[in-house]
Structure formats: structure tokens, C-alpha cells
């Protein structure tokens, strides 16, 4: 436990076997990083959480999970089962709102 530090972005011990590809970060990665750095990702996550709870999506997913039962189930199993249904059942207005927010974010940080 004494090795634990509060910052988790400590660079890893260089591993001789693996060679990290030195590529340019993709556009997706850049956007992701910008969103995290500005705190926008966190805000969007909270917004999404709120909307999905409001419309009952979370409760629906919960009941789907419960159907799987409690025994001999791992988190991965549940994620695997839930993900396609979850993605499909997000209401359109929620998607639209999130997209709009992302668009305005991109517009505001365009360089």
C-alpha cells in the first residue's frame, strides 16, 4: 500500500517487450482528451445519467440485469448482454440532446 500515490497518471515502468506505436493521435483521441481536460466529459456524463434515469432507461436495464439472476454471473456477462439492448433503447431525444451539446462544445473549442 505504501506504493500507492494519489496521482494515477504516473508513467508506467517501460516495458522492454512492448513497443508503443508512435503514431499521431487520432481525431477521436484528441477530442476525447480535450473533453476530459475541460471537464466537459464529466458534465456530459452527468447530463446523460440524469436523462437516462428520468426516462426510465436505467430502471429498465436494472430489471434486465435482475432477470439474469445473481448466481454465476460476472460483470462482464452482464455488460455483454446489456450493451446491445442498452444502446438500442436510448430514446432519440436524449441522443439528440447529447449530440447537440457535443457539437456546440466542438464549435466553441475549434482552433
Amino acid at each position: 500500500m505504501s506504493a500507492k500515490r494519489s496521482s494515477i497518471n504516473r508513467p508506467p515502468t517501460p516495458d522492454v517487450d512492448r513497443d508503443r506505436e508512435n503514431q499521431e493521435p487520432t481525431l477521436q483521441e484528441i477530442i476525447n482528451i480535450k473533453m476530459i481536460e475541460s471537464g466537459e466529459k464529466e458534465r456530459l456524463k452527468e447530463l446523460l445519467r440524469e436523462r437516462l434515469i428520468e426516462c426510465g432507461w436505467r430502471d429498465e436495464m436494472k430489471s434486465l440485469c435482475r432477470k439474469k439472476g445473481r448466481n454465476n454471473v460476472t460483470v462482464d456477462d452482464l455488460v455483454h448482454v446489456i450493451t446491445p439492448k442498452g444502446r438500442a433503447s436510448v430514446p432519440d431525444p436524449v441522443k439528440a440532446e447529447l449530440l447537440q451539446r457535443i457539437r456546440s462544445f466542438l464549435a466553441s473549442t475549434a482552433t
Partner: protein
Amino acid sequence: MSSKINHHHQNDKTNGQIFPQPCPHLADFHARNGTKPFRAIQDCLHIKPPGGRAAIRRDSSEVPRCGVCGDSSCPRLYACMACAAVSCHVPPHSSHVAIHATKTSSACSHEIAVDVDRAELFCCACRDQVYDRDFDAAVVLAHTTSIIQSSKPENLRKRRRIDYRPWSPDLRERSLMVNNASPIDSMSSSNGDLPRGLRGLNNLGNTCFMNSVLQALFHTPPLRNYFLSDRHNRYYCQSKNGVRLCLACDLDTMFSAIFCGDRMPYSPAKFLYSWWRHASNLASYEQQDAHEFFISMLDGIHEKVEKDQHKPRSQGNGDCCIAHRVFSGILRSDVMCMACGFTSTTFDPCVDFSLDLEPNQGSSMKTSSTKSNHSCNCEADGMNSSQNCGISTLMGCLDRFTRPERLGSDQKFFCQQCQVRQESLKQMSIRKLPLVSCFHIKRFEHSSVRKMSRKVDRYLQFPLSLDMAPYLSSSILRSRFGNRFFPFDGDESNTLNEPSSEFELFAVVTHTGKLDAGHYVTYLRLSNKWYKCDDAWITEVNENTVRAAQGYMMFYVQKMLYYKASEKQGTS
């Protein structure tokens, strides 16, 4: 390896919750790292305002990445408890965190990791979420160090219990009883199958608001039992010396009249007069609001009793008078600063729950084409209150009541930590349930801005059985903190004493008509039959009639008290 996503329904009447066995790797981690290996993580946790979710602390500009592949966008990143290396877990493609676990040596175990965004434990070897009491304790401690614990309400600290002593009459008492009492008519009398205590109430001039509430109260099990067992005797009551009035005595008179077996409609004139003297501002022959009358009446009973017997003011423990003993609960109100997460908590007693009707029918769950598998099936799935096909339900209203609410920018709350007024989030929950829960639906809207009042006629679906568990403070707090096992808010000490959270409906007060010209009717549930009490007319009705009625006040009693009372004809 089994895991629980949300241990919820286990009724642990015994201390604490059911604990899953740790996986061998977690047990090993414990063995290597002492009794409280997770306590140090408290310093690494950051509680995110406003909701209070826990995550691993990091600078806002830090972007966590997998140490192996550099990916920062995958949804689950884990930090090793031993060396803080971050790895991703993307089944079934790759799991760098599982590879990391293989670094385990005799000196150091790299098998246990923590989710950086959710602060939940993961066993990399088992590839599954694990739970640990010590870890959860650290999370809760991280939460609560910034919260100044408001002192618990006095009444919940210690509960005086009186030992139960059985009683049987001696000869003198027996002869007293025999000489001064007469046996209750058997059910084979000409009154037919009507249960005891059903008697119409004459309308004395727009008094249906009073009649409807009285009918519900006559059949409120704890209240009925109290008066019928002579706990308030109108002949011996001290308060009625001369002109002083006692609403409880008048109530006692009415209980005797209602349950005596006479089926002719009764005129509650004396009670009306007494109530007018108590609530003189409402004394008129105009139509009044039934809920207002209900509150006023409880207040009247409380006031008169309290003055005379010098009992302490009600703090929700109900020790002061029968009205509070039956109806009083405690509400918990949390106000969370959206800037720093500091939470201020207060406890207030309440005698009922006033709920808003949802503003738009099914505004959120539209029947959109993508949801082909979500048929508009309105069978309430017990807990699943959000099957919102456009019909408002009582549980939906309760969800709204306990939902975190953003206080507007004009209602900024002074945060003790920030020392300035900040925007905040407020959340209500129920700390202690009353014996009888009265739900009042706010159907009458008075807008002082627009200088008009209107009635909301929208139908509200209400269940016959209601489980209030999700609205309790313990549940609300649990969902705020995430998947934890740590007991909250003194839960452990009280689980043995807490009554159950299951309630049964026994009375519904309905309103038909317009705001200023309407009519109140009460439906009573006795021995699983429904009776419509429309002033002086009482008729048996079908359950569906009740379900379709426009509920204004719904009375639910704790299930324990309901079953005992309603089993047999003779006792109902």
C-alpha cells in the same frame, strides 16, 4: 465466481447485510496487507459534486490511460491497488488488467484493482467485480469527512421499551366486565354481511370534505383500536372542564356511535361545532379542502392533548398524542453544494406526504420506434415505477418526491464549506415511516402570480400494496454512494427495531367535479371488499371502480397492522 450487482431486497432483520464471500485473490490481498488494507485509499478518493459519486482523485486535466495500449477512451479503466498502474479491460477483445495481474509475485499482489471512475473493486484474476467491507468503509468515510454530521433526532437515539406483561382479570374485574358490558351482535344479524363500523354520515351543509376524511379515520386501524379500547375516555378526560373543548373526546363519541351497530346515518354535528371552534378561520358552510381539514384535525387533537398532559412537542416519535403516534414520520432533507459537494442534512417531522402530479404525461419515455421490445404494458412491475406509458402512478410521484432537485439560481444556498451562496441540489427521503402514510395529491393549484386556481384532473394510478423501501433514507443514500455494503446512518443499530416498509391501502378519498363545486367520496377496504361512502349512502363496490377513481388522498397502513385487523369479519 458469483457477484451481486445490487444487493437490495434481502430483508436483513439481523444486523447488517448479507456479505458475499471474498474471492481467493481478495482474501489473499487481505492476508498480505493487514487488517485494513483499503483505508489508505480514502485519501485517493474524490467525491464528485453534486451527486456524490466517488472516483479516484486526479487533476481535472489528467487523462487516465491504459499503461499498455495508451487508450483513454475505453469505459472501464482500473488502477492496480499495489502499484497504481492503470490498465484497461475490454472484454472480449483484450484485458490488459488481467495481464497485469500476472505480475503477482510473492512480495506483491497485483490482482486487486479499483475502477478509476467509479471507485469499485475489481479482481483481475477472476475478472469480476468484488466487494469488501473495509473498502466501502473507506469510501463512506471519504464522503462523510466533509459532512458535518447533524445530530440525530433525539427520539431515535434511545427507545424506551416497555416490557410486555400479559394480563388476565381477577374476580372483581371479571364481574365488572360482565355487569357493564354486553356481547357484540353476531354477524348473522339482520344487518347482513356488512362489516362492523360502516355507517353513513349526514351532510350538514357542504360537509362532504369532513365526512370523507372521518370515514377514512374511523377505519384507520391504529386510530380505531386506540379509541375503541378506551384509551381516551370522554367521561374522564381532564381537558373538558366547562367550555374547554377536546377534539379527541368528540372523536371518541363518534367512534362509539359508528361502531355500535346502528346503521342509521349519523350526524357529526357536535364534532363539526368543536372543529369550527378550533379552526375558526375555516368555520363556514362553504366547501372546504379535505386535506386542509385533515391537517387541522390532527393539529387539534395534538394541541389539546399536549397542553393537558405536558408531553414533549412532537419530534416525529409520536409520543405526544395519538394523532402523531399514528401519522407522524420523519423526513430527511439533504442539500448538496454543487461546487464542492458539501452536504447539509436536516430532519423534519411530517404527518403526511403531499405529492405533485407529474407535469407531462410520459414526456420522457415516448413510444418511439426504436423501442420495439418495450410494449406499453402498464402492469406495475412491483418496484419498476418508471414504466411510464403516459399514466401517472403513485410510485412515479414518490420517485419525483425523492429525486434530487436542482435549486434555481435564485435559491442559492449558503455552503458552509465554500462560505458563499452556491447553487445546490436538494434531495428528500424518508428517515422514519409512520404507522399510517397519508398521500395527498396536489390537485388544487393556486397561482398567486396568475391570480387563479385550477384543479388537476389527471388520473393517478395507485397500488393496493406499496413498498416504501426505495424512498427510505437508507435506500436513497445507498444509491447515492453506489454499490456499497457499508451500513448507513445508524442502520445497523436500528434494523431490529425498524418496522417493515410494506404498506396496504385501506382508504381512498376521491374528489369529483370542479375546484369550487365538487364532491368528496371515500372508498374503504374492509375484509378485502370495497365500500363506497358517499355521505349518508354506503354501498359495496367493485375493486375496479376504486382503481378508476380520482384519488385525492390515499391512506396506507403498515402491512403488519392491516392483516391482523382485517382477517375476520368480527374484528373489522
